[in-house]
């Protein structure tokens, strides 16, 4: 009656306790529970299968054309039952096929995700975007620009730690101004390198930069347009620079005021950007089941965010640069040491926080 087939999908035994039959029933439950779309129109009716089904149900329901006395009634009933069985079997086959296809797709997706996870573990912790990743057609691909940044930033922090050590040792050892100058220059260039790296990263994924995900948790608390507030930078440097001449003090005050004004203006621009983006998105309408066609103006606004991040970094860079102009080498060295240690402490705090006990007191 049935030809046993090697293929799982096309095996045709239709006994009640058939494992495939069971699986297709289970598949049906699986489907109804998880709201997955079964592709509606992809299964072509197989006539041959149908006739086999008829044979099978014929076998189950027993020969029904043997009793001629009640020929019409039982035959009608039997016919109806046969038709119903055929239909049920057909539907069951369709469901099973859809279910198996879903399994196949999920399996492939799982393999891909595992692969990405492995890559990410080796290269850093960035996997493109959290919720963005759970989107049909967007398998959450790793952004190479960001992966690069993560690696480079890791190296940057290591180098930073080395430079902080060097500065500390040099200041304690009372080295000459000449030697200090070299260290200060290195530190200064190191910071400027970070700004270059961030500029590239912002082009790759501006939201990654503004989220502060590349920094430790406690640092993120203070994040202002993708980094520390420029005026905060100066505040940290400040106490370490004494004694300062009156002229220097006055210049630092002027610089700090200028920073605050620049920050305020930039921030108001950002708020306006947020507002106009919200208005643009609120005005979007569904066109043929998609919002995408109306998103062009919103996309332009998101691109403007890159400019703001770059401008914020520009202000940071300029503030540092101006401090180097105002300060003596020794003062600059002390300031850089203070700044470096400040960030080191925050990173340590973040680590402590991450490993804190979760036990109730």
């Amino acid at each position, binding site marked *: 009656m049935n030809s046993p087939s090697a293929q799982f999908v096309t095996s045709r035994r239709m006994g009640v306790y058939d494992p495939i039959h069971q699986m297709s029933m289970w598949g049906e439950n699986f489907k109804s529970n998880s709201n997955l779309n079964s592709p509606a129109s992809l299964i072509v009716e197989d006539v041959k299968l149908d006739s086999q089904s008829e044979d099978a149900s014929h076998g189950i329901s027993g020969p029904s054309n043997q009793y001629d006395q009640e020929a019409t009634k039982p035959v009608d009933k039997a016919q109806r039952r046969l038709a119903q069985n055929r239909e049920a079997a057909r539907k069951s086959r369709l469901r099973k096929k859809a279910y198996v296809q879903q399994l196949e797709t999920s399996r492939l997706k799982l393999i891909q995700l595992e692969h990405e996870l492995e890559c990410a573990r080796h290269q850093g912790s960035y996997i493109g975007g959290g919720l963005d990743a759970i989107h049909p057609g967007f398998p959450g691909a790793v952004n190479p620009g960001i992966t690069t940044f993560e690696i480079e930033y890791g190296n940057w922090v290591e180098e930073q730690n080395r430079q902080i050590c060097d500065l500390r040792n040099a200041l304690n050892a009372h080295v000459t101004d000449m030697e200090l100058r070299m260290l200060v220059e290195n530190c200064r260039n190191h910071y400027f390198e970070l700004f270059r790296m961030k500029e590239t990263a912002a082009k790759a994924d501006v939201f990654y930069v503004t989220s502060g995900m590349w920094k430790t948790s406690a640092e993120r608390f203070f994040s202002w347009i993708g980094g520390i507030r420029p005026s905060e930078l100066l505040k940290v440097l400040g106490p370490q620079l004494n004694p300062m001449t009156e002229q220097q003090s006055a210049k630092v005050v002027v610089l700090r005021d200028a920073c605050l004004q*620049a920050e305020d203006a930039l921030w108001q621009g950002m708020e306006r950007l947020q507002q106009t983006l919200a208005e643009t998105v609120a005005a979007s309408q569904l066109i043929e089941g998609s919002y995408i066609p109306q998103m062009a103006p919103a996309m*332009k606004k998101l691109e403007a965010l890159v*400019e703001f991040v770059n*401008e914020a970094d520009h*202000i940071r860079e300029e503030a540092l640069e101006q401090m180097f102009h105002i300060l003596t080498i020794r003062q600059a060295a002390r300031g850089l040491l203070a700044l470096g240690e400040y960030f080191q402490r925050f990173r340590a705090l973040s680590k402590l926080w991450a490993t804190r006990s979760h036990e109730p007191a």
Partner: protein
Amino acid sequence: MDKVTRLVSEKGIVIFSKSSCCMCYAVIILFKELGVKPLVHEIDEDPEGREIEKALMRLGCNAPVPAVFIGGTLVGSTNEVMSLHLKGSLTPLLQPYKSP
């Protein structure tokens, strides 16, 4: 170019902007905070906006807006303005144009 020249000689501080540009808005806010009232020209609302844009690009601006002119001279865009301000050179430039 003539229109640009004419406009920048009309007032001491002239800023070319676009109404949709939030960075322009930031620069205008900065100038207001510094106590001056720049003449803002929204080129997207000007029928000759395209020509103005081209003229500004020819003057060497990377982005046409914001473009800041003080005393008829091109100062630059956001970057240049911020740098000037942090250097302490912007305020003296604005001094003649401050409202009493």
